[in-house]
């Protein structure tokens, strides 16, 4: 009898106490989709959150029980708070339902915020187990609030999903990956600096606008859109990127890369001026060319031109990074992995003097179906 009581008592306790667990029933919470932070100065920020606005399809009969549909929910909230404050907590008081952050897709910072430094925001996100690691970060030229709350977009899709879809499809092409995970990796990792895509509102739509390069947590340099391909080429192997090359004034050739890979080799890693050798292989499929500029016979000539041009651009790019003292390409990591007893302390000074040798080998695989 006593044994049974010992067995049954916890079961009963579980049964009755389980009602006390806080639940987040999916349609009884407001799921934050995007957060935007605009810097106002003096450690004050303007925070904006958006929530999805699911419109029920006008299917007759499906809207039973006379309950309000989600279409009539709150769509966005904004307000002033201090830097590093959890926006979900800040706006909880104005939520008609509990606001939850677990499905957030997008975190936006305006350029002023990014220039001021993101370390409080990074800490906030990194500490919170509810933050999905694959959410996208981005820097906004202009105001995040305007971007997120504008009603004049062409699309009816919630703006957070619009932006995330845009960033994601660009990530599959010219832009390097910029999720929270990759950002945190570069931010917390040694001998590397993070980067984020820049987006901006252009009239009634939103567009990618190059890469924001960070020094630690501060936005210091903008990489224009036509350099992003070169950057990604040096950063990782990828495909489906498109590169436009103006080989003579007003004469363009554009190719899609079928495959690109990059290999690094390092010599004299602990010397004052380490030698970094990058060899890049590009398999290209020509998408567009100036008429009569390219034929089967002339493609080796064009390949050579491209080789020289891209190597030059890469070297320029690295030179600019060295001058700014930032390392978004994670060259320091490559040097470290090639060097026994790597001297990390003196690396920042030696990085500026490092010699970057780049060799690009473009192979034109295809010139299109007609000559």
């Amino acid at each position, binding site marked *: 009898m006593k044994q049974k009581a010992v067995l049954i008592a916890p079961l009963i306790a579980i049964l009755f106490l389980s009602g006390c667990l806080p639940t987040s029933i*999916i349609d009884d919470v407001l799921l934050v989709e995007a957060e935007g932070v605009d810097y106002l100065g003096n450690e004050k920020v303007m925070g904006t959150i958006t929530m*999805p606005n699911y419109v029920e399809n006008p299917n007759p*009969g*499906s*809207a*039973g*029980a006379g309950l309000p549909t989600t279409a009539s929910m709150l769509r966005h909230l904004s307000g002033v708070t201090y830097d590093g404050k959890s926006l979900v907590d800040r706006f909880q008081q104005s939520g008609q339902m509990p606001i939850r952050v677990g499905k957030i897709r997008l975190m936006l910072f305006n350029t002023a915020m990014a220039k001021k430094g993101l370390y409080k925001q990074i800490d906030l996100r990194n500490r919170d187990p509810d933050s999905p690691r694959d959410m996208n970060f981005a820097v906004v030229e202009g105001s995040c609030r305007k971007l997120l709350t504008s009603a004049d977009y062409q699309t009816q899709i919630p703006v957070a999903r619009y932006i995330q879809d845009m960033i994601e499809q660009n990530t599959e092409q010219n832009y390097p990956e910029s999720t929270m995970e990759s950002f945190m990796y570069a931010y917390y990792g040694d001998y590397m600096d993070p980067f984020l895509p820049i987006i901006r509102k252009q009239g009634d739509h939103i567009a990618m606008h190059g890469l924001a390069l960070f020094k630690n947590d501060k936005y210091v340099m903008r990489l224009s859109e036509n350099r992003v391909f070169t950057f990604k080429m040096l950063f990782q192997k990828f495909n489906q990127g498109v590169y436009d090359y103006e080989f003579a004034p007003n004469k363009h050739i554009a190719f899609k890369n079928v495959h690109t890979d990059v290999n690094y080799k390092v010599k004299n890693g602990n010397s004052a001026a380490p030698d970094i050798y990058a060899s890049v292989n590009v398999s290209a499929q020509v998408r567009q060319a100036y008429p009569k500029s390219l034929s089967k016979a002339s493609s080796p000539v064009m390949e050579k031109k491209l080789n020289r041009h891209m190597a030059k651009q890469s070297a320029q790019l690295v030179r600019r990074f060295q001058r700014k003292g930032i390392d978004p390409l994670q060259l320091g990591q490559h040097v470290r992995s090639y060097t026994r007893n790597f001297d990390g302390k003196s690396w920042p000074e030696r990085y500026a003097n490092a010699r970057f040798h780049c060799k690009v080998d473009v192979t034109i695989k295809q010139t299109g179906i007609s000559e």
Partner: protein
Amino acid sequence: MFWKNSKKKNDQGPAQPSKSIADLLVQLETNPDFNHFCHKSKTLTCWISYINTVVDLEYIHRDLLPALYSERVQCMKDIAQVVPIDKLIETRDLSVIQTSLLDGYFMIQPSKRSQHVYLIPCPKKQARQVADTEVETSIVGAHDSFVESLETNINLVRSRIPIPQFKVEEQRIGKLSRTRISILYIEGLANKANLNTTRQRITDLETVSVINANMLALMIGDNSQSFFPQFFDTERPDRVSGALYEGKIAVLVDGSPSALILPSTVVEFFATIDDYSLTWPVASLYRLLRLFAVAFSVISSSLYVAALTYHYQLVPKDLLATLIVSRSSVPYDPIIEVLLLEVMIELLREAGVRLPTKVGQTIGIVGGIVIGTASVQAGVTSNILLIIIAMSALAAFITPNYRMATTIRLMRFPFILAAQMFGLIGVGLCFMFFVCHLLKLTSLGRPFIEPIYPMRVTDLKDSFIRLPSNMQGQRPLFLRTADKNRVNLHRTMQKKGKAKPDIDE
């Protein structure tokens, strides 16, 4: 207590054995279907008794009684020569007399109270014709199934195993019912320990009556508290004979159209006889499909509850809108919604089974279309859940064994409750509970989830996948058969000879 006092009055119970043949006859004479009369011919006077509802009256009138009237029967001993029968039992044993009379024997006594009797077997068995299988249907396999007569059933099996090693042992169990039970096995294959355990469990059984084989399975099972059936029950004689050839033991119960196969493992419950008619890749895929269906059926609705109640983070972003929109008009929590639909499906199934076949179809339509659509339109359940529940009900019915199918259908309820209490952790805990239980479970003392734990690679060849028959050269290791190889392994594995060109080149 109350029942202790009432025990005393019960001394005239039906279980009281008759002291003498006179007592027995007196006891039987009250029945209107008991015939007891004096037979007088020119040469012989004797007393005849039989129960006319269990004997073959036609046989008695046509063959037995004319023979007794014949003048060649001078005394009792002549009966054996004159009456066209294969055996005449001569006995003084009262218990034999009693059971024989009740089984449809024709009793001849020299005098009214004589202890010394002659018994002639002439039982009449009312048995159904051997018909198509109904529970475990097969598309390309055999179509005959067991019926309620033990003789027919043994006949069905024996005609598939025409060897002298095939043994049938008969026992009677049930204090009152004395039901006939046959233990079938192939001598020299079936493991002796298994056989002894089976015999012991059946003889030691304390029971009043055994009505069917599944009832017996529950009584002789290793763990009577378990959710899971521990012995496979089948209505297919081909399945039984296949199992016997593997070295298993089958038990048949008189009056029950199913056979038990002992010992069984959990994977057997998900194999059908049709698997052996299909090519091995197809059969393997279907078995994996069944496995997936079981997992889906058990887990899906509890995952729905867990994800929608606690883990909104896990819902894929593209599904989020669909889920929220379909749930937005539902006034209940996910758990209530799920329980409502699950209970509805169980009601439908139960109603469909209980009703006659023709009405049963209507119930399916009413349940599936009318109630399903109406409940969504009324905003009681969400569209997505309706699909999930219907799918999981469908997946539960994919299990070939009916008893296992019911277990799987009911297994989801603890999962749903656990999901509501603790979310995914609850589902994990519940899963762990079932895994622990299965690990401990045995069938005839052999591990129930055998090819998985303990891991027996040879037995995996015919479990979730079915490898071709030339790789199935060994009998299941699990059974510890006396002869472990089915065939000459050397010959199945023989290399082909050197290829010769078709045309001389």
